[in-house]
Every structure is written in C-alpha cells, then in structure tokens.
C-alpha cells in the first residue's frame, strides 16, 4: 500500500515534468524557458531517483 502511494507520487512528478518540458519547447520567451528548466530539475532528479 505504502509503495503504491509512493509510486503515485513518482507518477505525479512525471506528469508535472511533462508539462514543464512541453512548456519549455513551446515558449517564445527565453526567460520563461529558462525558468521552466529550473523548475523541471528537481522533478527529474526525483523521477530518476537521484535525489
């Protein structure tokens, strides 16, 4: 049960990361693009189980 919940959290991170990546690809504002990547970083680190 506990591991299912943890998995849901990883899924949530993937979901959020996907939108951030999409946002990065689409935006025409370089500052926004940079910010998308900064925000993306912790989510990807968690999904890859690096931190």
């Amino acid at each position, binding site marked *: 049960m506990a591991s299912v919940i*943890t998995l849901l959290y990883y899924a949530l991170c993937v979901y959020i990361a996907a939108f951030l990546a999409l946002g990065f690809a689409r935006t025409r504002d*370089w500052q926004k693009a*940079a910010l998308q*990547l900064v925000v993306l*970083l912790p989510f990807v680190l968690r999904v890859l189980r*690096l931190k």
Partner: protein
Amino acid sequence: MTRLIFAKILAACLFLACLVGGGLEMRGLRTYKESLVKGPGVTGTGRLSDYLPALKGSWGDTNLYFLDSGKPGGTALILGGTHPNEPSSIVAAFVLVEQALPEAGKLIVIPHYNRSGSTATQPMGAYPQFISIKTGWGEQKFRMGDRLANPLDQWPDPEVYVHYPSRQMLSNVDMRNVNRTWPGRADGALAERIGAAAMELIRREKVDFVVDTHGAELLYPVTNCIVAPDQGASIAQLAALDLTATEFEVHVEPSPAKFRGVSHREIADHSEAVPFLLESPDPFLDQPTGPKTEALELDGKDEFLLAAARRGLLFTDYDEKGKSMEERAGRHISVSRQLAAQWSLFNPERIVAFSCPGYAEFVANGLGPYFRDPAAAPEGSVVLE
C-alpha cells in the same frame, strides 16, 4: 528567433549539466561503500532485519556486530549514525568494531543505525559528501549523510507526523528522523520499522543498556552531555562526575517526560533496557559557521563560532583549538566505557566491560592508528558498510 534558440540551448546545457553532473555526484554518495575491518573482538555479525523481516532488502536494513566476551554478564547496544550528519558517532562505532575487546558480557554495535540517511546529504545543507581520516595506510573514507532518512526510501512526508503510540504531533519531516520514531511500528513507514526492529533486538538479545551517540550544536543547551531517564540518572551522573574529574567535562540532562519518540525516553518506557544518549559538541552543525567544509567537520575550527563564543552565546567552552573529530569520537567511546563501568557496579550480575582506545588515545595519537587497513586485513574480515 535565433537568440531564443541560442538561449534555449544554453539553458538546456546547464540543465543537463546539473542533472548529469550533480546527479552522478549524488549517485556516487548513494552507492559508496565504506570499508570496515572486523577487529579481534568481533565474534559475530547480523542484520537489523533479523529482528524484523519487513526491513529485509530495504535501505533501512543495516549491519550489526557482536562482540561477545564469552564471560557471563550483561549486554550493551551501542548505536552509531542515528543522525548520519553527526559523523563522530559513526567514526566512534567503527573504532569500536575494529578495536574494542570485550572483557565481560557482550557488546552489540550498529555503525549505521540510519543507513538510509547516510546515503544523501541535506538539501540546503551544502555538506561535503565525504569525510576522510588520514591513516598510516591511506585514508579511511566515510559518507557524510543527512539527519533524516533519504526521501528516496521514504516518501511522501505527512503534513504533520503523529508519533506512534503516543499520538504526540511532531514536525512532519521528523517522520524520517529515526530518533523520533522510537519505539517504532512494525508495519509503519521505514523509519518506524527501523525503530520496531531495534526494539525487538533489545528484547530478544536482552539488552541491559543502550548508548545512542550523537553530535550537537554548540548553540544548543543540550550539548557535552549524557541524556538519561530516571532509571539511568545515577549511573549517568556517576559516569559524568568521574569523567569530569579525570578526563573531560560532561554533564547529565534528564530525559524530558513529554518529549516522545526519542531513544532516551521510549526505550526506557517500552523495554527493560536503560537508554543513554550522548551529545558531543560538533561545530559543523551550528547555524552561524563559515562554509560547511570537510575541514570544519574534522577539526571543528570556525571563526564565526569563535566570535559567538566570545559573546558568551555558546553552551560549551570553545576556542581556537576547535572541537576535533578525535575529541568528539573519543568522548563517545570514553563515556560508553565509563557508563559500562558504572552500570556494572550497580548490576554486578549483568557486568559489561570492554577495552577500547578513547578520548585520551585519540587526542594524543589522532584517529589514524585506530583504523585497520582493509588491504592488509585477513580474508573475510572486511565488511562493506
């Protein structure tokens, strides 16, 4: 347009550098194994999961070392690495396993009580990832960990941590603090399972007293001390008086009855064993210090803290000499020895006695001579921690 693409590529490069470079470095800590050489005192090894199968295969499982004198007496459990960011505790446990010789009764030593926590450093802590102690044969390298269990092993945190079984509310991250999850819960979160396993170990091995070693900030009133519940007050007090008279200042703090989840409270309340928690002053942990470097962890010298000391803000003496790892790890061993001696006077049928280099030896010779060379160790005696 080209500027936008250029900016995006640059940002992506930086992102990938952080992800790969930073990620690999953190992965390096997570997977690094310390070498420990079983000393002549070690008569057996085990795993914490032997006492709670639910821990098996998890990052909460950890090695135990038995040092049995073969002579009748009592049993003491010594915990290192409850808070892996207080490494004097881990260093002391390593020396105990490599050097201690039991003379009566039995010692059980756990060098990495919170193994999960020893595999990641604290976000915003800016810790070094490793600390290395020079020896005659090279360097003995230790992981520098976090106070809490690694979120990769226990996630998510609750909004507020409700302690089992008292229902006291504690800070949410304390659910990953193995010194807030005593006496544990066999089907709880990882840190709670670690507590439950340790309680089972205490019961099954008929542990008489537990020594939980820590480091503490110098700005923290509970430093330089033994924290003991009523059951252990006299033993702790006599140990403190004798040590203060002979080796170094140490005092006793009573275990607060209302503070749940901590070893010095719950072990006393939920078992026959008497717990003692040792705090040795560790400047690295204080907020007002310069950069958190390996040198600061090892020699404990810091200018900011010195300024704080001059203004009378610290709860222990502090000067240019700092508070070295030798001193801090040595205190843990000397206090443990002294507690065993006092324990034995009060409980002659459950004597625990052991010899091991401690404060005086470390301060005089450094820590180097007390680590064995894994390359020169007899076959089968090297354990990867």
